């Protein structure tokens, strides 16, 4: 492909949005199609989405996307005109298009990405092409006057036939609107009518009433009786008449309205209903202009500024203290303090505001997952229903992005390993349709995401045998492990419960990658499984990453921050409480033995004494994924909200250090990478599954 001009970031993000909207339409259509009947407006929305994508791509010179969109547009047009039935095959092609579009966009974004070839998809689109006239015989329109049919567009006529075919009655709704308020009036009437059926078209009414009023006839297809509709849409100037499909009499007007109740003037349709239909798009335009797309980097800059302002404020408080010490200016310093307090409040509001802007709903990822479930389920020949709850739960944009791969992998595992084949499910008396629940909810300042399937669950004995045969744990050692410890082995690198790699999940990456990715987001992952009943993975995440709460500690006279979300608790022990097991120091906490490590030792810091005060030893208990470790420190200095700053290319590889942050007084301190420290503690020659320095260190 020849080098196209590089589309701007603006194009990429806008196209991404259009494709996401398109994908959401498809998912709804898919669900409704399975249920038997779908809302034609969804198909229209999908058509509009692809149409605007085509325009957008054309505008930015993304020729390939534009031409693919063009082909799809024709297919969607056939679908909405009923020339092509909306089958699962057709939906397959449309879903595939979503993937291809996204690959194309990704290829635009990356410098050295392989060009995406849409040929295979184009061929499948062509294969779908309609056999002429297949659908148009559907509804019998004998009763309607040909002249009135003539003014309908092909789409309207198709919908009219569809309504007749579905056994709906046709109604003519006559409405009069004030010229000035017509857009509001039509919208409100339309939404009322939608509850009763489908609005097929709007036709300007024949009788010209007063100058400042517009009268319309609306063609409505509905299963309800005329009385119900009339009651439901009751509004000034609106009346409902049934249209009899049987020709009652020779009508003077074009519309064969066998109007029984009030002898209404017959509509004389004029062949240009376009103006009124346009009212729709105008409304959507307005809503688009309500949102602003912002580069995340700009938000980071703002965030940094807020962090620095907080430092300025802290310095001001220090100055205030100094002024107070001078004495004689009590009034002024009191006033200053009031202002400072106000500033503090406003600053924290500002900080919260910026954080809120970074938040996006998890639905962005869940939509992608819904497509994956549909695709993989069909490939694996398993009928799977995905239930999503909490798609509106919000997380920092960065976290949402980073989550999509781990979640994708967990879903794949559910489909491949968890959900049984339909036969197996029938044998064990389960519903043939497998079920995956994807739940998200907020709990305090954390978000919990659960992926649960009702499949075969995990057999801990099988996991143990596999782990032994893979040499991950020794045979003897494995006998001493608890059930939960055995199940946690699935997070160890190199573990996979199936010998033959399948296309779905056997890609050499396993749950260990999931765990690493979650840990990188300061998250915890837990698994709960009942053989024969299913498995549940729970991911606990902080709501935001950019600003975190940190525990400030000191060791060997150096200050460090520990992310508070990985701190479980801090305890104080005396030297007598520290025992040694095979050369490793441990403490007992509520009956559990915890390995401990000295920060000054692992960081090679020069400490004058091993313990500042042997009677008061502070231990910070940290936990990540399934492990708990105690870190010995000299002092606990308190908690603080800190803005994380990256260390840059040169120092980013230092194992155990996640970043830096500024505390008051211009001090820069390091933020510990708890996940790496925990890994290291566990790998200290226990011969167990963690006997290697994690690769995270060099990521």
């Amino acid at each position, binding site marked *: 492909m020849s080098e196209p001009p590089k589309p701007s970031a603006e194009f990429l993000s806008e196209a991404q949005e259009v494709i996401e909207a398109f994908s959401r339409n498809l998912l709804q259509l898919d669900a409704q199609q399975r249920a038997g009947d779908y809302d034609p407006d969804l198909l229209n929305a999908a058509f509009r989405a692809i149409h605007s994508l085509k325009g957008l791509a054309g505008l930015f010179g993304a020729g390939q996307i534009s031409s693919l969109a063009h082909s799809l547009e024709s297919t969607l047009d056939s679908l909405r005109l009923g020339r092509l039935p909306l089958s699962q095959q057709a939906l397959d092609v449309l879903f595939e298009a979503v993937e291809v579009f996204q690959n194309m966009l990704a290829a635009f974004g990356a410098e050295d990405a392989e060009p995406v070839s849409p040929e295979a998809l184009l061929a499948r689109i062509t294969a779908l092409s309609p056999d002429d006239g297949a659908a148009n015989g559907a509804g019998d329109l004998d009763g309607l006057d040909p002249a009135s049919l003539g003014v309908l567009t092909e789409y309207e006529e198709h919908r009219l036939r569809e309504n007749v075919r579905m056994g709906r009655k046709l109604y003519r709704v006559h409405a009069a609107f004030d010229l000035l308020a017509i857009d509001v009036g039509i919208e409100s009437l339309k939404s009322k009518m939608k509850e009763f059926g489908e609005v097929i078209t709007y036709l300007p009414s024949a009788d010209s009433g007063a100058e400042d009023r517009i009268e319309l006839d609306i063609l409505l297809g509905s299963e309800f009786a005329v009385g119900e509709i009339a009651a439901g849409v009751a509004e000034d100037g609106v009346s409902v008449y049934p249209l009899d499909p049987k020709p009652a009499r020779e009508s003077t007007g074009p519309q064969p309205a066998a109007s029984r109740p009030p002898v209404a003037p017959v509509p004389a349709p004029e062949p240009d209903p376009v103006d009124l239909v346009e009212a729709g798009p105008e409304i959507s335009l307005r809503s688009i202009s309500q949102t602003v797309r912002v580069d995340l980097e700009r938000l980071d800059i703002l965030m*940094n500024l807020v*962090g*620095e302002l907080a430092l300025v404020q802290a310095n001001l408080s220090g100055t205030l203290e100094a002024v107070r010490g001078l004495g004689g200016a009590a009034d002024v310093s009191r006033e200053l303090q009031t202002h400072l307090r106000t500033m503090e409040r406003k600053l924290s509001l500002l900080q919260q505001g910026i954080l809120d802007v970074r938040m996006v709903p998890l639905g962005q990822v869940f939509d992608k997952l819904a497509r994956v479930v549909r695709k993989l389920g069909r490939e694996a020949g398993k009928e799977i229903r995905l239930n999503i709850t909490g798609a509106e739960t919000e997380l920092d944009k960065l976290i949402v992005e980073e989550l999509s791969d781990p979640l994708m992998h967990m879903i794949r595992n559910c489909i491949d390993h968890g959900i049984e084949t339909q036969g197996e499910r029938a044998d064990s008396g389960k519903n043939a349709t497998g079920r995956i629940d994807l739940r998200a909810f907020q709990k305090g300042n954390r978000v919990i995401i659960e992926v649960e399937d009702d499949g075969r669950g995990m057999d801990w004995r099988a996991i143990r045998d596999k782990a032994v045969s893979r040499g991950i744990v020794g045979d003897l050692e494995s006998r001493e492990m608890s059930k939960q410890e055995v199940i946690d082995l699935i997070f160890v690198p190199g573990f996979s419960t199936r010998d033959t790699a399948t296309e779905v999940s056997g890609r050499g990456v396993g749950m260990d990658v999931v765990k690493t990715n979650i840990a990188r987001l300061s998250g915890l992952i837990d698994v709960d499984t009942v053989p024969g009943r299913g498995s549940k993975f729970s991911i606990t995440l902080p709501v935001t990453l950019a600003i975190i709460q940190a525990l400030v500690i000191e060791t060997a006279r*150096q200050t460090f921050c520990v992310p508070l979300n990985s701190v479980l608790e801090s305890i104080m022990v005396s030297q007598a409480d520290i025992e040694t097991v095979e050369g490793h120091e441990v403490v007992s906490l509520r009956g559990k033995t915890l390995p401990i490590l000295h920060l000054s030792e692992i*960081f*090679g*810091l020069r400490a004058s004494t091993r313990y500042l005060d042997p009677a008061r030893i502070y231990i910070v208990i940290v936990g990540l994924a399934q492990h708990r470790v105690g870190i010995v420190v000299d002092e606990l200095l308190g908690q603080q909200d800190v803005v994380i*700053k*990256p*260390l*840059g*290319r*040169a*120092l*980013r*590889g*230092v*194992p*155990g*250090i996640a970043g*830096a942050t*500024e505390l008051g007084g*211009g*001090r*820069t*301190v*390091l933020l510990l990478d708890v996940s790496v420290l925990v890994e290291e503690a566990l790998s200290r020659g226990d011969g167990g599954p963690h006997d*290697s*320095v*994690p*690769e995270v*260190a*060099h990521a």
Partner: protein
Amino acid sequence: MPEEDIWDQMGSDALATEEDYEHGYARVVRVDLQQHVVFSVGDETYGIPIAQIGEISKPMFTTPVPRTADFVLGIGNVRGVVIPIIDLATRLRLKTPGGGRDARVLIVRHQSEQYGLLVDGVIGVMSIAPENLEEAPGALAGARGDFIRALARGEGRIIIILDLGTLLDPDDFLAASVKAKGARG
């Protein structure tokens, strides 16, 4: 040396002045001269192209970073951005540790990230003509040779032009012990 002085000096050679116009360009204005910030480390004189230098500041407070090589002094905070600060003397194996009254930190920009280089003192800005640059001197063996991009002769001394690519190689920043473990894992 304050930042303004450097920019003053930079203008003096490369740009035509009032005088040039008056005398009908009697003076030859060379445009191929490269401006270098010249500084001392130990007993030697070094240079870095001025385009790579963002600013020159007094030594700032640095926070030591564990598990890093000996030449990494730590991280410093330059206008809210956290950057690594390097002791150039240690990096160049010059034995004499950096610092002192005239010590400065050159904030350099490399691959769109900033680094601070602690030097013993900034001498000034010098224009170096291409013909006075001796590219990639092969004779200089050893680890230090990798850091040298060229030698320049000017004002009676040899100026060693440093190569930021090798000087700031991220692989060298980790302490050897940590790297060994990483390689095993």
